[in-house]
């Protein structure tokens, strides 16, 4: 997707080659609406983090750690790859990565949607608390570790120990799962799950058949300590 030039304000292009990260983030946070380009990110960390308004931000290149971290309301697209912890602890809004994402994508995020066009590395969706994550490619090991709520859809494969120590998050994987983590089991894919997945895929702009996915969730056997009474 390209930004229509006519939507840009005169100051809509923020060049990280000429401005400091502080200046760029402060400028973005000062806006309550509008469309903005961040140019020459060059792998900078913490780009467009802490946004708190329904602005639309396009990062034109690769971003470093914690891009769009703690996002609320904003729509942020990274036109490239993203480093560790993209959209970590997001509350709402949309974060899209056109390329690949490094580890801990969407970590602890409470809401909104994270879309990763390519692959996501280890611990994708770790401790997620309500976010929806759609990954066009595959996810690495320990993804959805201790995931509490929300849904993760993976169009490719999942690495080892998927959903280890899972709580109530729903995991949908179309490809192969290397192994399931502790207390994570395959569950029946019912109509409600196919409907949820179809909705997520549609909003993410992913063309995939929900019926091709398998669902994984918590066996809930780790929810309480087991205490014997052998006295």
């Amino acid at each position, binding site marked *: 997707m390209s930004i229509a030039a006519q939507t840009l304000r005169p100051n809509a292009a923020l060049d990280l080659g000429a401005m400091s990260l502080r200046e760029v983030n402060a400028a973005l946070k000062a806006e309550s609406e509008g469309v903005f380009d961040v140019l020459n990110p060059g792998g900078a960390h913490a780009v467009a983090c*802490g946004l708190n308004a329904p602005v639309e931000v396009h990062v034109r290149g690769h971003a470093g750690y914690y891009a769009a971290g703690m996002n*609320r309301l904003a729509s942020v697209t990274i036109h490239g790859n993203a480093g560790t912890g993209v959209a970590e602890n997001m509350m709402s809004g949309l974060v899209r990565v056109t390329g690949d994402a490094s580890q*801990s994508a969407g970590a*602890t995020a*409470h809401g909104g949607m994270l879309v990763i066009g390519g692959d996501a590395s280890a611990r994708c969706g770790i*401790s997620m608390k309500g976010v929806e994550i759609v990954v066009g490619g595959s996810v690495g090991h320990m993804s959805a570790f*201790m995931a509490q709520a929300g849904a993760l859809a993976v169009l490719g494969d999942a690495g080892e120990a998927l959903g280890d120590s899972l709580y109530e998050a729903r995991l949908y994987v179309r490809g192969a799962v290397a192994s399931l983590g502790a207390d994570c089991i395959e569950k029946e894919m019912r109509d409600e799950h196919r409907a949820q997945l179809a909705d997520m895929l549609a909003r993410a702009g992913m063309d995939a058949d929900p019926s091709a996915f398998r669902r994984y969730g918590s066996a809930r056997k780790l*929810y*309480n300590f087991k205490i014997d009474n052998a*006295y």
Partner: protein
Amino acid sequence: MTEQPRIPRTVPRKSATFDDATLAEIRRAAATGIYDIRGGGAKRKLPHFDDLLFLGASMSRYPLEGYREACSTEVVLGDRHAKNPITLRTPITIAGMSFGSLSAQAKEALGRGATLAGTSTTTGDGGMTAEERGHSKTLVYQYLPSRYGMNPEDLRKADAIEVVVGQGAKPGGGGMLLGQKINDRVAQMRTLPKGVDQRSACRHPDWTGPDDLEIKILELREITDWRVPIYIKVGASRPYYDVALSVKAGADVVVLDGMQGGTAATQDVFIEHVGIPTIAAIRPAVQALKDLGMHRKVQLIVSGGVRSGADAAKALALGADAVSIGTAALVALGDNDPRWEADYQALGTTAGAYDDWHEGRDPAGVTTQDPALAARLDPVAGGRRLANYLNVMTLELQTIARACGKSDVRNLEPQDLCALTIEAAAMAGVPLAGTDWTPGR
């Protein structure tokens, strides 16, 4: 029938190795198949502040008048990078304790007491409550591995952010909150099913090591517009390196928690066998700051078994800028108060020994989510008691500082101390009393 002479026999003698507590624990473990979980800090006898003494002024030092001459207790925390560093009237702060482990009343009381005394209080592994924020003039927001209740709105309401890497009671371990205390409100705040035995993560989900943490801190500063100080809290285990790496990662303040520091709930084996005593941790931490040229620039807060102004004075003399209290603050609120002895007896314990904080049946209403029990703690009265206690500690601290000739409590120094035991002398790096011998130096 003639009576046979009795052969002398040994008296029943219990083993020092297999003492009553050890035997009871073996039987309990055999019966239940689960390790012992409890609250509080190490209960075993450890080298501590009691093993240190101050050398009051005499011929070679000049004391200050106890009531007439000024002795400053003010401390500024976090002036390395933050636009708004914290200024406190006393260097005795309230340590992080969560809503969930503590009742809402207890959290409110901590905020009230800290505010009255001119100091800060700290959230815990459960997010920020409105009661706590509303009654705390200065509130430090903990950023923990679990990120329960973490949201940018609360982050921006905080006066400082404390990135928790570890805790003295359990360095290397995560928190616990058992199902009895996960009621509707706690479950909602933590996004957990009601009634689960919650075991927090021990590592942060999106960074590993000081290089990553440096970037995480950059993110936190960007989100809060570089306004508030960033603390890093570590459990005392390898204090020299942990403090040095905290500074490297960008901390404005380092919080160092010794093994006497309490926890809401964790395995007893963790509490008693992992970490090092508080007095053993301070000097290496201070040395790390000095080696980096950052002593007094990155402030050091020490916690773990601080109970009195004397303890605070000793921590400051060893190089700390401030101290934190947790368990002592709960006692000031009413925890383990003998007035509830009948209730403690009903729980199979006694006032002063009650440590099953994780069960949520605290008669004093401090470590519970039971509405009836929690209502026993009046947050206004509890806050007043805490403020009184903090004021007494501050007066005690000044008393000692003046006796050592200091017009500012942070002018206390290791040369004002001696040790009662060889162990304490070695750990604190001060001479054995009556000698000029500092073991290991």
